[in-house]
């Protein structure tokens, strides 16, 4: 029997997560990833006005709210049979791109960097220090300065989003048909100038910082690999007149590319606190009911699968699938791919801005049919995000959400295949079980967002009163 380690909370992520691993002879032999937040958003959305889901689903997540406005808008457009104009699509993609910049900069500096760089204890929030910091003082100092400098740039990325979206987070601008603001010259040049600052920081500072870290922690190129099955719903592609394509819907399983087919997406609830007639179902089929008495379940994160396979999603999956980065699948590759993607997204926004025709209003008045359904699938900051909705008597009668975090942090399934992050933990050597720095580094490389992903319930665990004297 090995030693069980539980880490809770895993800080520097969005939301609440517990990691439970079993360590034998300093090696992780079993792993469970669990989220610790239940709100039941899919249930809350029922019987609401269909237009409202764009703003409502944003409230799922504070750091990637724009992702949900994108997916819900696409699902409504599918349901209402509306194709946005190219201008509308480009403007919306610009807004979505700003969210990528904000999210990736904050994730890299505020969430990941403190695992590798010793932040001075100027404030209590930075007071704990583990044993494995490897940078020479001078480089460490430089990256610490960039930790604080980056706050200004991620803020400016949200400022860009507010130009078209009114405010961020929980922006207003993305809607059916594209966006609600009209792109005027003052707005376009404001976006360009803010983007220029962000682009310079990302390409001159952030990219250097990630390569510095990768040099001193090169063993992390070999840690935290996982299955190597990759999935993307595509984003920043499929434009009529602009020569630009970032990533198309693509799948790579068992060392083979497959044609993407959304019918291959399923969820399984074998190890989750839900019951339904079928333990495996397609997104449009069912929202399973909560049930707390399943003894083998350990999480309310469901297990999403493509053709039955667990798949990794996110920046590394995208860059591997589109051929831009194929150095490998591991902790350090994930972090590098996210940083390189930040630079790439900034370039994409420049291109899109250059192709905007000013002063066009892309909005119309829309009607909700009595009965319809639609799906919105798109790659967002953390990976593949899908919303599936049904409308009956002009109100929402069904809403299914499968987030990137459900792909990366799923439970085991009916075939006992581990979730992607669980698999990535297995086999990792833990140097000091008292201070397992490896685990946090592996988990954070996926950029988990438990606010998005999880509905976890812990059964039969009697709470002991906590008394402090």
């Amino acid at each position, binding site marked *: 029997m090995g030693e069980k380690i*539980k880490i809770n909370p*895993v800080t520097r992520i969005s939301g609440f997560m517990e990691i439970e691993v079993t360590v034998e002879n300093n090696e992780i032999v079993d792993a469970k990833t669990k989220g610790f937040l239940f709100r039941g958003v899919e249930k809350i959305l029922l019987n609401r006005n269909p237009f409202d889901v764009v703003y409502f689903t944003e409230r799922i997540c504070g750091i990637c*709210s724009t992702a949900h406005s994108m997916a819900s808008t696409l699902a409504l457009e599918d349901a209402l049979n509306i194709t946005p104009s190219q201008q509308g699509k480009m403007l919306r993609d610009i807004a979505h791109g700003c969210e990528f910049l904000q999210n990736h900069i904050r994730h890299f500096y505020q969430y990941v960097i403190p695992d590798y760089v010793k932040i001075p204890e100027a404030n209590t929030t930075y007071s704990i220090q583990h044993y494995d910091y490897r940078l020479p003082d001078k480089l460490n100092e430089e990256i610490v300065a960039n930790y604080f400098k980056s706050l200004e740039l991620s*803020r400016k990325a949200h400022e860009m989003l507010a130009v078209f979206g009114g405010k961020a987070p929980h922006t207003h601008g993305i809607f059916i048909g594209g966006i*609600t603001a009209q792109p005027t010259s003052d707005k376009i040049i404001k976006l360009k100038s803010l983007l220029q600052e962000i682009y310079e920081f990302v390409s001159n500072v952030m990219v250097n910082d990630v390569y510095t870290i990768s040099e001193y922690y090169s063993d992390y190129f070999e840690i935290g690999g996982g299955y190597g099955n990759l999935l993307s719903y595509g984003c920043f592609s499929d434009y009529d007149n602009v020569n630009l394509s970032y990533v198309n819907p693509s799948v790579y399983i068992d060392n083979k590319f497959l044609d993407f087919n959304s019918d291959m997406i399923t969820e399984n609830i074998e190890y989750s606190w839900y019951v339904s007639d079928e333990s495996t179902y397609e997104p449009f089929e069912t929202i399973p009911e909560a049930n707390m008495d399943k003894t083998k379940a350990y999480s309310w994160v469901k297990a999403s699968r493509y053709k039955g396979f667990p798949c990794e999603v996110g920046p590394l999956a995208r860059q591997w699938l589109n051929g831009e980065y194929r150095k490998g699948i591991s902790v350090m590759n994930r972090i590098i791919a996210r940083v390189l993607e930040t630079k790439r997204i900034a370039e994409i926004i420049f291109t899109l801005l250059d192709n905007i025709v000013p002063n066009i209003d892309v909005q119309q008045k829309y009607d909700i049919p009595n009965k319809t359904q639609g799906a919105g699938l798109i790659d967002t900051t953390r990976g593949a995000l899908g919303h599936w909705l049904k409308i009956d008597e002009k109100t929402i009668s069904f809403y299914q959400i499968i987030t990137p975090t459900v792909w990366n942090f799923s439970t085991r399934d009916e075939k006992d295949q581990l979730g992607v992050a669980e698999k990535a933990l297995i086999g990792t050597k833990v140097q000091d079980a008292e201070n397992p720095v490896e685990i946090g580094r592996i988990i954070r490389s996926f950029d988990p967002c438990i606010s998005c992903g999880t509905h976890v319930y812990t059964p039969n665990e009697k709470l002991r009163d906590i008394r402090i004297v």
Partner: protein
Amino acid sequence: MSKIDVCNFCENNSSPTKRLVKEIESKIKDNTFKKKNFVWLELTGCSGNIISLLNGTNPDFEYLITQMVNWVYDNSLMVEQGEEAIEKLINVMDTDFILAVEGAVSTENNGLYNIIGRWKGEPLTALDTIKMLGEKASHVIAVGDCASYGGPSAATPNPSLSVGVPEILNRKVINLTGCPSHPDWFLGTLAHILLYGEPKLDEQNRPLLFYGTLLHDICTRRSYFDRGIFAEKLGDKTCMFKLGCRGPVTRIDCSKRQWNAYINWPIGCNTPCIGCAQFGFPDKMEPFISYDTTREE
């Protein structure tokens, strides 16, 4: 006057002053006289208020944590993890600290729907944590709708039985509604507490400084309303009233303050206010968007 001069001056003065100075001197000696401790708890919600706070400018987040308070705990940013993180929460309770909370408090099944960490191996729920810290803090600030009254986390049918922080605590809680709360609403409230004590509050315990005016009264598009010129779809430049704008029932200063380095606000991008700073959001503010221009008021 140097420190020694001050002390000499006090020696010859009234005893209460002398006692105070002695107390401060001893605190300086013990190294316990420092910025007030500060805890930011994220509970049942989207953790969007901490992201909004990072968008603050002058003061920005760096100024906040280096000049204003001693920032002890926050799930999204702190370096520690696991029980070492929770230990800081436990230790702060015996000190003088301010507590800010975002997210609602899930009460379903004894609070087990939202576990924020483990302490001595046992799960620590949002409910436990807020009870534990809430009574001991010098001030409690509920940041955002979920913390103030349940907000989107408690929307019908409220599967997690979420409630706001004031429903759990038997004490005054300052509410900063908004989804998310604007960084200025929080930073301005905190500054008021640090510099001048508790700010003047409305009947729902929100600072009048930010929540004193009806948005409709200070809307940049008010003249369109007065002249009866109404937008028919999103993207129009006129009054959003007939599309479902909740400015007429929402007390907040968005139109004057603006968001994200003060450059825009929802009506500025041609969409209605959805009343996110008003109690009852989202359920009582729906529909957010309606093209039915004969909407009942």
